[in-house]
Each structure stands twice: as structure tokens, then as C-alpha cells.
């Protein structure tokens, strides 16, 4: 019964499934109740999440985006699965300039709002999203501006809205 799995059992099972993966992966336990697995290739995400689902190991609690900055040139997407007190994180580093990731919504329908948020806040193209509409940002938000990236400059919005209202005044 998955719901009665203890934290230790969950970590052991997750280690078994994810660390002894078909291809070698980097893994670290930052705390006794956590397991972080870093993927080498974004395409490994779907098979790995499928493996977690087959084992009924936890539920997707959050998708966290991290911008490692323009110097580093990477974004990191964290898929956090929780079971009992265990937090199992699949970390997917992707290039900032070509940020593309597969959607999880076919496996986990509840991932839809998280992916919509990730996509608009970090400029990540999520392939296979059922509803690619904006979730939080306004309809007139400028294209190509991603607020949770580290190099986001709020003055872009000032200019954007000023241009819009000037254009409206001319009409």
C-alpha cells in the first residue's frame, strides 16, 4: 500500500529505481529524507517519472524552476515528488538559450498548472502541453520577457506599457 510507505522505505526504493538507472546518474542525499537525482539528458525525464509512477512512489508536489544565471547559461528544473517525509527531486539542467522540456501532463494531469507557470515565468518551452495558455501573467505581457529569470529587468514593462498607452492615445 503506497500511502503507508515509510520515509526510509521510500528513499530506499527511490534510490533503487533512480540511482541504479539504465544510464549512470548523479545522485546526492542532501538530508536523510531527501534524494536529489540530476539527469544528464532532458529526454531521460519521461522514462524516469514513468518509473516513479509504476512504483507509485509519491506524488508530484511541485515543479521548481531555478535560473543559474547568464554566466552559467543553464536553467535547472526540479521535479519534486513527496512520499511520507521524503522529498525525491529529479533535477533537469537545460540550456538557457534553448530551454525545452517534455510535458508530464500525459503521466500526471495535475502537472498542467505547474508547467504553465514554469513556461511563462522562465521561458521554458514545454512540449506536449494540453493548454499552453498563460496562467498568471496578464494578456498584454510582452513576448519574450520572463520575470523569474535572473536578468529580468522590470523597466522593460514600463517602456512596454508606455508604448502601448502612447499608441492608444494616437488612435
Amino acid at each position, binding site marked *: 500500500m503506497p500511502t503507508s510507505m515509510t520515509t526510509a522505505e521510500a528513499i530506499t526504493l527511490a534510490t533503487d529505481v533512480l540511482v541504479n538507472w539504465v544510464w549512470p546518474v548523479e545522485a546526492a542525499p542532501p538530508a536523510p529524507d531527501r534524494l536529489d537525482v540530476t539527469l544528464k539528458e532532458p529526454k531521460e525525464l519521461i522514462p524516469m517519472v514513468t518509473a516513479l509512477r509504476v512504483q507509485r512512489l509519491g506524488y508530484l508536489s*511541485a515543479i521548481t524552476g531555478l535560473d543559474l544565471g547568464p554566466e552559467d547559461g543553464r536553467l535547472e528544473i526540479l521535479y519534486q515528488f513527496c512520499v*511520507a517525509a521524503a522529498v525525491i527531486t529529479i533535477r533537469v539542467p537545460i540550456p538557457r538559450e534553448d530551454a525545452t522540456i517534455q510535458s508530464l501532463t500525459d503521466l500526471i*494531469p495535475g502537472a498542467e*498548472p505547474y508547467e504553465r507557470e514554469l513556461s511563462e515565468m522562465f521561458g521554458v518551452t514545454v512540449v506536449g502541453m494540453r493548454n499552453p495558455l498563460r496562467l498568471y*501573467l496578464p494578456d498584454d505581457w510582452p513576448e519574450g520577457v520572463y520575470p523569474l529569470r535572473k536578468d529580468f529587468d522590470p523597466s522593460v514593462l514600463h517602456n512596454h506599457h508606455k508604448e502601448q498607452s502612447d499608441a492608444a492615445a494616437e488612435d
Partner: protein
Amino acid sequence: MQPQKTEQFTVPIGPQHPALKEPSSFLISVDGEVVTNAIVRLGYAHRGIEKATESRTYVQNLYLLERICGICSHIHGTAFAMGVERLAGVEVPPRAQAIRLIIAELERIHSHMLWLGVGAHQGGFDALFMFSWRDRETVMDLLESISGNRVNYSANVLGGVKFDLTAAHIGDILKALDYLEERTHHYLKVVTTDASFLQRTRGIGTMTRHQAEVLGAIGPTARASGVLRDVRIEAPYGAYVDHPVTTITDDRGDLEARFAVRIKELFESYRLIREVLDDLPPGDIKTRVKRKIPEGEAAFRVEAPRGELFYFIKSDGTDIPSRVKVRTPTICNMTSVVKLAVGHQLADVPMILAGIDPCFSCNDRMVRVNRNNGSDGWTWEQLRQHGIEYYKQRSQDYDPLVVG
């Protein structure tokens, strides 16, 4: 013969007040009175808080994050403070842990009673709405007497809590709990026996156990579908380690079950507060936390009144966090609303929406747009000056007050 063509009509609900007094927008496609599709659009109360945390210190962020939600403010502060304390490797004194639990449970009581009122109002039962909100004032008064504030109590500091509970507070709390317990028995009887109200709740918006798991429902919404998901039990934190919670679940999964689960959870909160007050550990209420937080990442989960609240904090070794991610409970349950509405009467949609106890301020939190009829936005100083002038006209002078 051609089959008769069915016309689809889309009803926009919101963004103004789709069910409660908060903004969100739903595009509901209907065939006659029956809902065939629903699309949600959020963000009308989006304030850019996650981004704002990246330019404020940990201490400032504690107060900022508490303002994500006016109803469950304490739990946001607790999740952040406990996450930071874990990163800093600080042990919080037991008395502070106990006080955090008591405030959290008082918050759960007032949140559930608020919801009971909103739910009743949506069902057209305004007497219940007014009674439950009257009784909710009991808790609000308690919180005000303890902290000085009805909402945003600011009970937490990094490393403990700000104020102690005196003998007078404890007496007041115990007296209030006796009164509330009696009232809660009455409410449970009403929502499970009132025939006209049951017509609006029984068998409406039913979510099976399997659906709840697949759609990722959490909190009382999931527990009303028989899914035992409660962070206080799965991953006990703070004083919940020593004071375990009994979870209330219900297998029916309809609106009636959601009412029953939340009301029964009130009894559990009363029991828990009494248990902790009975055995309140003596000692300090705070410990010192260094201004700079060591490099690292922490994921911290707590049980908010609406379900699991998830915080992810990344520190780069300075006094300002590199990233704070907040995943609030409503966003998890929103998927279920959109799916459950299909097949129901349009008139049931507000009830189904209210059934998950949505909190849009929680949902929407990240980006601030300066838009003031085309002119530039206000700076902090301008806003402050406006506030001072505003109150001066109302004969209150805050000018000499120096902030900073």
C-alpha cells in the same frame, strides 16, 4: 437524416468574484444547463512576491511571505522560518514550537469557519453563513489579543516566536474553545441533516479516491475523497512530532463530505490545542539565527488549512535568498475543479469551486506590473508620502514617524 447539431455556448465567469470575494476567471462551455468544458485563468491578484524575495533579506522576506495570504498568513511564515532554520542548522526552543502549533491551529479554525460561511452562502444558506462568521470572530479576537493583529499576526521570527502566551491568554483560549466546540457540534448537525442544504451538497462534485490521486488533490479536499494526505501526519514538523494528529477522512468525495471533513477537523484542532496548552513546555521562545544563511537548499512542507504548502529555499551564503519557491495548496486543487465541473449543472459550479476552499491570493503571487493609467508607477517613497498625506487629511499625523 442529418444528426441534430448541438450548439455550444461559453459563459465567462469572473474575473470579478466567481464565488468568493476574490478574482479569478473561468470560461465555462455549456450545452443547455450542463457544463461541457471549463478553463481557468488566474493571476488577477498576482503581486510578484517570489521575485521580490530575491531582493530582500531573510528577515524582510518573513514579513513579505506572510502577506501572500491574509487567511493562512501564519503558516506561510512558519514554512519559511522553519526552512531557513533548517538551512541555518538552528534548533528552535520547544516552547516556541508549541506556540507556533497553537497559532497554526487557531488559524485553521478561523479558516475552516470562514470557509463554512462561504460554502453555506454559495448554497443559499445565509443564516449559517452569518452564524459561522459570528463565531469565527471568537478566534479572531483571540488572535488579536495574543498578537495584536486579526490577520498577519507576525507570530514568527527566525529562530522562534515573537510573543509568549500568558496565563490570561491560556484561560481565554480554553474558554473560547468550549464555546466553539458546542457551536461546531451544531454546525455538523446542520450540514448533515438540513434537507434543503443537502440538495446542494449530496452527490454534487463527487471526486473518487482514484480521481483525487490522479488530479493531485491535497488537504481537506483530498481527505474528503478518502486520500490520507496530511503533512502533519506524513512528515510531522515542529511540535506535531510530539503531538500527533488524527486525520479525518471520508470516502464519499462529494461536497457534503468536504463539509463534514472540515467541520470534524475543527474538533481535532480543539483537542490538539488543549493537549498542547495542558503541557506547554517552559523556557525561551526564541534563539539567535545569524544574518547570513549557509549555502544550501531546503524543501519544507507544512499543512496549511487548505492542504500541503510547499516551500523551496535556495541560499547562496548571503543574507538574501537566491530563490524562494512557493507552491500553495489551491493550485493543486484547481485542476480538480476544472475536471469536476464537467457534467454538472452550471448553477453547481460556484459550489464546486467553493468546495475546495480556494484562495486566489495564494494562487497568484509573483509578478508586479506598474500600470497607472499609462503614467509611471509609484516609488516606495511616493507611496509612503501618499499614505502620510491620506491619514493627515483624516487628522492622524504619521509624518514624524521614522521608518527604516
